[in-house]
């Protein structure tokens, strides 16, 4: 009787401890997951900032005499592809959605850098105050994108390191896709480095 009680008590204590440590691990994962989500919001907002600059940029280069049409059409198309992305939330948890997002944004990056290279051939356009301001805003935005992408990767790395270390990995696995590994941005030509155009 007495012995049975002790065994039962021991069992209860072990279960309690297990539940508490489970809760602690879960909460730690939630905190890190939230950090990744909020950094993701930063990434989206700087990309949005860039997308918002495009209409003005296209209108400005259109106004220049005989500007090569194909380049700004390509930018406008890439911009609309980015606008059509409807990935919802949870992109960092979903490698397929993340890859789609990256591909669309990288497409816009390369279309933009081609356009900025072509602009070199139009000194009159380059010399206008409107264009040089736009260019500065574009460069600043590219730099912001690089900064936020790096911070996102750091947050994702912190999450993944915790998530994949033992014994947390067992808890994370228990919750299925709730704590999927986060995807990373890969450095890609033309998107990590702001397009460098001589002033």
């Amino acid at each position, binding site marked *: 009787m007495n012995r049975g009680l002790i065994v039962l008590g021991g069992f209860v204590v*072990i279960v309690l*401890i*297990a539940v*508490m*440590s*489970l809760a*602690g*691990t879960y909460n730690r994962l939630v905190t890190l997951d939230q950090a990744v989500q909020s950094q993701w919001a*930063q990434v989206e907002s*700087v990309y949005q900032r860039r997308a918002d600059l495009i209409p003005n940029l296209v209108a400005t280069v259109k106004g220049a005499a005989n500007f090569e049409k194909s380049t700004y059409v390509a930018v406008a198309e890439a911009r609309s592809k980015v606008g059509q992305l409807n990935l919802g939330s949870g992109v960092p948890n979903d490698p397929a959605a993340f890859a789609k997002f990256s591909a669309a944004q990288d497409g816009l990056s390369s279309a933009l850098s081609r356009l900025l290279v072509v602009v070199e051939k139009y000194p009159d356009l380059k*010399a*206008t*105050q*409107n264009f*040089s*301001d*736009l*260019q*500065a*805003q574009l*460069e*600043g*935005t590219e*730099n*912001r994108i*690089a*900064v*936020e992408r*790096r911070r996102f990767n750091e947050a994702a790395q912190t999450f993944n390191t915790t998530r994949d270390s033992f*014994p947390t990995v*067992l*808890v994370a696995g228990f919750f299925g896709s709730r704590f999927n590994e986060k995807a990373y941005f890969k450095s890609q030509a033309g998107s990590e*480095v*702001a397009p460098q155009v001589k*002033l």
Partner: protein
Amino acid sequence: MNAVRWLFALLVLIGLSAAANAADVPIPPSPTHWATDATGFLAPQTVVALDARLRAYESSSGHQVLVYVAPTTGATPTEDWTVRAFARWKVGRKGLDDGLVLFVFPKDRKLRIEVGYGLEQTIPDATAARIIRDITPELKAGKPDAAVTSGIDEILAVLAGEPRPARDSAAAGKNLDGPRASSVPNPVPVYPDTGSSRFGEFFGEAIGILIGLLVVAGIIALIMKLPDPPKGAYISSRGSGFGFFDALNLIGGIASIAGSFSGGGGFSGGGGSSGGGGASGSW
């Protein structure tokens, strides 16, 4: 068993800190003056004049505007280096992030205006780029003192809400500056005398390391005495009352306390958040 685990964790920690120290061109500690030039790029009297001016500017407006001349950022891209330096130095006031640094890297022939979040409305990228464009000709012409001084002239003028001095004919472009950031009438932070900050930092670090070692030794002793965690509580070695994660948390906490201790006593305003706003140029 536990001792072996601990030894391993310690080795990992040591490895991590060694890796952090091996960065190619490390971000220097917070400057101790408003204008810093360790390279001799600017004339000493220019540095002194700028320093006095920016110091007075900060005590009247609260905005922390710095000039920093370093030889090079090494293999790190300029923008990457400056945003890290800005964050490490905590330029600007806490919560307002109203700091700005004019960086000049003579060896790279690059310069950058790094703008904190709080001043992005007042100095948007286009304005920063115009200022950069205005002063690069003087840098090209080998007149660094004139260039940096007029750069600061323009920055302070824009911050004061004045129209930018028209130096080029096209300056009458459309106003992209947006509304001025609300200037909260915060009390001006008083910085302690920064003369002994090097010593303070060293002292702080030494004490931090000492405390850290003592705590680690204590924890090891504690854990060696405790029995192994009960079987079944595999989820976390928390089972032993004071387990692996708690110990790590404690070490982390102590390290951050030690870190903030050693980082204090300097020049930092407590801000430092910047999202990479500003503009760069080269000459």
